[in-house]
Structures are given as C-alpha cells and as structure tokens.
C-alpha cells in the first residue's frame, strides 16, 4: 500500500497521524510553502490502506493506493 500526502493541501494539523492505527505517519521537519510541517508516511510497508488517515483529513490532502 502507498499513502501519499499532497503538500499543497496539507496544513500539518496532525489529525491523520492520530487516526493511523499503524502509527506510520509523522509530521516532516521541513515547512511547506504555507509554512506548515506537512504529514508524511514514514513506513509505507506497514500501511494497510485502511484509509483512516484519509477519513480524518480535513484538507483532502491524502491519497491511498494499494
């Protein structure tokens, strides 16, 4: 499975991180254009494509593939 965050939309609110049962998400150190730390998947292997992060995301920034 592949979880990707579109930095353009992400505001680093962290709701996806809280939502992930596998704890494979984290905020990046870098800032995006809007000055937010975007979320990213730090461990794609363990992503189960359960889409919980997608469901939680207020900004439609997440894509899940498998």
């Amino acid at each position, binding site marked *: 499975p592949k979880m990707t965050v579109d930095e353009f939309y992400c505001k680093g609110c962290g709701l996806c991180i809280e939502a992930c049962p596998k704890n494979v998400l984290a905020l990046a150190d870098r800032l995006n254009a809007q000055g937010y730390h975007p979320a990213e998947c730090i461990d794609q292997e363990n992503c189960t*494509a359960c889409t919980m992060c*997608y469901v939680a995301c207020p900004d439609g920034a997440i894509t899940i593939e*498998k």
Partner: protein
Amino acid sequence: MKTVARRPQGLTDVRLTYCPGCLHGVAHRLIGEAMEELGIIQRTIGIAPVGCAVFAYNFFNCDMIQVPHGRAPAVATGMKRSRPECVVFTYQGDGDLAAIGTAETVHAANRNEKIAVFFINNAVYGMTGGQMAPTTLPGMKATTAPYGRDVEDTGFPMRVCELLSTLELPYYIERVSLLSPKEIIKAKKAVKKALTYQKEGKGFTFVEMISTCPTNWGMDPLKSRDWARENMLPIFPLGLFKDRGKADGEKKG
C-alpha cells in the same frame, strides 16, 4: 496499484482556506464524495453562507452561489422551484442558520422544500472572530460572552434538530459528528442519504454536524475534538430525528 482513497471530484483542486484541523474541511469532503458517488455534480447547485464557509463557492465542484447571511434556505427555495431538475443544497454555520436565519430555516423545513441543508455546528461565530452563537454552550466563553454564556441572560443552546422535528413534513433530520474517523464514516452515511433523497426528489433533508473551531476555541485540532466530544455531545445528542424514507419503506415492506 489502484487508488482506494483520494480527494473527491466533488471538490475543486483549490486549497481550502480553513484553519489547520478545522472540520469544515471534513464536512466539505463528505459532501464532495457523496456528489461524486451519486453522479450529481453536474446538476447540483450549492449555496455558500456567510461564515467561514463563505468561500465554499471556490471549493465545491458544482454550480455555486454566495448569498446573504442566514438566507440560504430562502435562496434555495427560489432555485429549486425554478430548476426542479437540480439538486440544491445549502451549507450553513450555526450563526447563519440558527440565529439570523431562523425564520428561513424553520419555514423551508415546514414547507418541506426539496433541498438539503448541511448545518455545521461549531458553537461559535468562527468567521467574525469567536462571538457567541445560539449553540454556544452554557458557561462557554466567547468574545461576546467574555464571562461565559449565562443561560439566565442569553438562553440555552438551541437544538435545531429537535426544533425542526416538531414540524409535520420535513423528510429527513439527523445529527452526526465529525470528531473521529468512526464518527466521520457515520456522518458520511447521513450526508449521502440527504443527497440521495434529493436525487429522488423526496423533500427537506437536514444534517447537523457537530464540528470544531480550533482557532476561536483556542485549542489545537486534537484537543478541540476531544473538547467537543465531552462538552457538545451531551447537549447535542447524536441520532436520527426523522426519516420518512425509512417510515415509507417500513409501510411498504
């Protein structure tokens, strides 16, 4: 590899202007998903309120209009009655719908106008900077209730679903919350049902969504969801208040 979840076609590719973690975004996505799944994007007209969602005309991928504060249900009435072939929905905050828009809300419901109303209850006036809303909780601080809402002076939080449920004809009324993935999945069902009934031309459908306002509540997104669960849900109980579709179904079956 196939895509199992992505930004829905019901939303444009414009970045939302809401604050980080604001659940307006979730409500938007659910409506966007439902429009896509029902294949009605091309024949839906959305109505943006005055409130933080005033910019919604940039976000929903259907025809959109921005209207006077609180009057969305009246505007929707004028639209639906001139374009019956369209699905018409309003998207309104608690100040817009339950304060200045009270008469328009009650009468559109009472006429059972064939429109969907999505009511985002965040217990505060977000856009204007955190004033008290009709839904502000007892004791809750707001810029116009600096000492906390005094129920004796300004009344008790308005429960709109309960109010509208006393009317004879509204077709579908439900209150859901957006405070966790689980709740969001439930909320999605309600949103989709509201729009499905519109597609079928049934009648007035109303979905209240318990939401948050991290900025004006002065909390981070996570904390604000917990706060809403602890403080709002007891006063705004979730649940189905009216579903004449179901009733009809039962009658049939």
